[in-house]
């Protein structure tokens, strides 16, 4: 991930799709505001899905993965390092700019900070799960659609916790408990998912 386009594309995608919603649903601010938490989160999920498909593709094609497999440390560690770098360039930035899009969709101000925090935590899970999907399908031709089938169901809890946190914040409820759940999920994912990614990369190297 060195080219600026790789960093800009998911943000641009986020921006474009967000633009589509007022066009499709009408400009009524009240209606947009009620839909905003869900829309923002679903689009973030799709953006993450889109970029994670290619996470290990170039490493696999140019043979870097073979070299990483020979490295003296386990593949899970390599995977965690690579996913972290990827997250910084995609999920992290996406979360940082999300309040701007929140404002565009008329999300009340009380929800903006929660949106940012929920996406910071949530994109950790999304990126890890996406990386797992990429590792499983990297050696498969036409793996793109398959990847969505594999990772969308696994992302359901992240989506629910994330949107609920934002909604609670908007309604003046208690977003902290949902953010805590999201944080727990992120922490658990950081521990468990790299192991699965390592095993999946092994399978892809072997097939």
């Amino acid at each position, binding site marked *: 991930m*060195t*080219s600026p386009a790789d960093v800009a594309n998911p943000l641009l995608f986020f921006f474009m799709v967000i633009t589509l919603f007022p066009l499709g649903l009408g400009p009524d601010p009240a209606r947009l505001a009620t839909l905003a938490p869900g829309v923002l989160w679903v689009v973030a999920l799709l953006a993450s899905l889109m970029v994670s498909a290619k996470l290990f593709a*170039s490493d696999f*094609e*140019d*043979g*870097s993965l*073979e*070299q*990483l*497999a*020979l*490295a*003296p*440390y386990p593949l899970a560690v390599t995977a965690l390092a690579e996913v972290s770098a990827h997250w910084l360039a995609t999920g992290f930035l996406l979360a940082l700019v999300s309040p701007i899009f929140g404002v565009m969709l008329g999300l009340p101000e009380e929800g903006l900070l929660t949106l940012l925090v929920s996406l910071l935590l949530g994109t950790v899970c999304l990126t890890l799960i996406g990386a797992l999907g990429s590792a499983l399908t990297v050696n498969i031709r036409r793996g793109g659609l398959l990847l969505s089938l594999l990772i969308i169901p696994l992302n359901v809890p992240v989506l629910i916790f994330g949107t609920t946190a934002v909604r609670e914040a908007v309604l003046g409820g208690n977003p902290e408990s949902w953010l805590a759940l999201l944080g727990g999920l992120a922490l658990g994912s950081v521990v468990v998912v790299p192991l699965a990614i390592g095993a999946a990369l*092994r*399978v892809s*190297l*072997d*097939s």
Partner: protein
Amino acid sequence: MLLEATQVAIERGDRRLLSGVDLSVTAGEIWQLVGANGVGKTSLLRGLAGVARLGVTGEIRHATAVLYMGHASALKLGLSAVDNLRWHPAGDVTTSAGQICEALSAVNLAGYEYRPVGALSAGQQRRVALARLLLSDAPLWLLDEPFTALDVAGCEWLEACVRGHVNGGGATVFTSHQPSRFGALQQDLDLGQYAV
């Protein structure tokens, strides 16, 4: 003994490609894996290197560090040759820019050090990858089709490089479709006899 493989079998999916392969490589030896297309040369080399594990049974022991080069060059096209060579998965090897430039001029790429590798030709990219041989201190080299995409001069350079490595106490196992590049210095392992 740099590599000891006993009764190695290679499977792909439900199909067994090779079985009962024995190979022991000591310092100063050059081994060429010989066999028809699809017999499993690459699969065996990957198994020997430890890149592939599934479908590889039997005992494979390395006494030392291994340098493996596959069909793909493991180069990032957006990065310069120097940046590419600075990164090495073995990790503990620290190479200075001076050493890297020296290696690059040895493979006849002086002047290309800081260009993106993607801008180089296929043969030149291969040379960048081969410069890794000069920067590694692994005694055992496992090279998959190292002569592909190289011109005559490049092939000669690689031959000399392998000879030097072997004379210095290293060993090389490689695959190639061209027979007997190293003459009396090399030994052939014909995989046809192990094919299932």
